[in-house]
């Protein structure tokens, strides 16, 4: 192929050039996540049931932690994934910021453990629903993961594994927050471990599927 054909190609590509919207991926992600979140919330409330004492505990800070912790993690993962969806982009500050909510939660858990008598500590960790918490969060996160990846595929990433991990954390974070509508647990150590496990599983799933999902 000669340089003349390249000139032909350039002329062809420029002819009838359609404008493109640069923020399209973010808009698609926002829309998809909203729809999937409504779906998962309906599942949580319909199949698992809204927690009975929800109105009573609205003034307890721990309830808000249960939502803010996974949601802040989800937000950071969002910024990471969207940024990396563009080829040539570096993660910027978003990669290390992932550690922030986790660190704060770990600190809360430690404080909680140390301010409880030794014999009650195991109770803080195991709670009453340790055996279903992680599974439920993962199940609620799956529709969110599908919705997230569908939007992220509009990109052209050169870091598919990292984008996948971000997608996993994003969907896991929102899923965990939605699960908070049902989950009765209020102990920081419980949340750290069992929410954390769900987030880890979602992140690993995203990392594993990333290279295949975000091919171009």
């Amino acid at each position, binding site marked *: *192929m*000669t*340089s003349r*054909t*390249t*000139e032909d*190609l*350039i*002329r*062809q*590509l*420029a*002819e*009838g*050039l*359609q*404008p*493109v*919207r*640069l923020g*399209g*991926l973010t808009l698609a992600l926002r829309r998809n996540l909203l729809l999937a979140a409504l779906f998962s919330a309906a599942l949580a409330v319909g199949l698992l049931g809204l927690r009975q004492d929800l109105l009573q505990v609205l003034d307890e800070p721990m309830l808000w932690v249960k939502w803010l912790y996974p949601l802040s993690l989800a937000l950071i993962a969002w910024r990471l994934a969207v*940024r990396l*969806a*563009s*080829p*040539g*982009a570096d993660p*910027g*500050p978003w990669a290390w910021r992932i550690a922030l909510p986790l660190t704060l939660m770990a600190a809360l858990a430690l404080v909680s453990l140390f301010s409880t008598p030794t014999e009650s500590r195991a109770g803080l960790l195991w709670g009453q629903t340790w055996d279903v918490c992680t599974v439920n969060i993962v199940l609620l996160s799956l529709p969110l993961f599908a919705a997230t990846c569908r939007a992220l595929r*509009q*990109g*052209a990433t*050169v870091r598919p594994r990292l984008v996948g991990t971000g997608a996993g954390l994003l969907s896991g974070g929102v899923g965990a927050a939605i699960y908070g509508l049902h989950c009765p647990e209020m102990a920081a150590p419980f949340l750290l471990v069992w929410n954390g496990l769900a987030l880890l599983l979602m992140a690993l799933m995203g990392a594993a599927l990333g290279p295949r999902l975000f091919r*171009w």
Partner: protein
Amino acid sequence: MARERKGQEGGGDTPRVESDRELALRALMLLAVGGDEKAYGQLLRELTRLLRRRLSFQLQGHPDEVEDLVQDTLMAIHTHRHTYQPDLPLMAWVNAIARHRLIDHLRSRRRTTALHDPLDDFPDLAGPRSDEAEEARLDVEALLQQLPAHHRLPLLHTRLRGLSVAEASKVTGQSESAIKVGVHRGLKALAALVK
């Protein structure tokens, strides 16, 4: 001559020095994103120059592959131009796309050289070519049948039936971008078939 620019988030107040070229190309890109054909043509021509230079260096043993890969990269840039984030350097974006296409190219090159057709070693066994077969080979329509639909149809409509890209797009349901890419790739595939 370089110009100073404040660093983006994470860099705080560190000034980032960016070349005139980067800023000029970025300006062209933003115009092109808005649909400016002239700016886009200028941008692609400049990028072609840069890509050709880079790829000639990276593909030193195979100079014949350079132009193919330049075109491949241009098409990838065109198809994925919506992924550019304006607060990131354009050349980083372009180079990432170029590198991705290069890796793909090297991988497929390794695959095809590994799939050595044993018949090539014994040309007599391939069978005689009759005159009719030769004529059929040169029959354009027959050649077109050997192409996959997404190359054959754009070529059929734009070249043989004389439709414009927009009309062909309506008929086939493919986007205009896909039609252009299909025509270009189809022509290349045809050229390879008649070699």
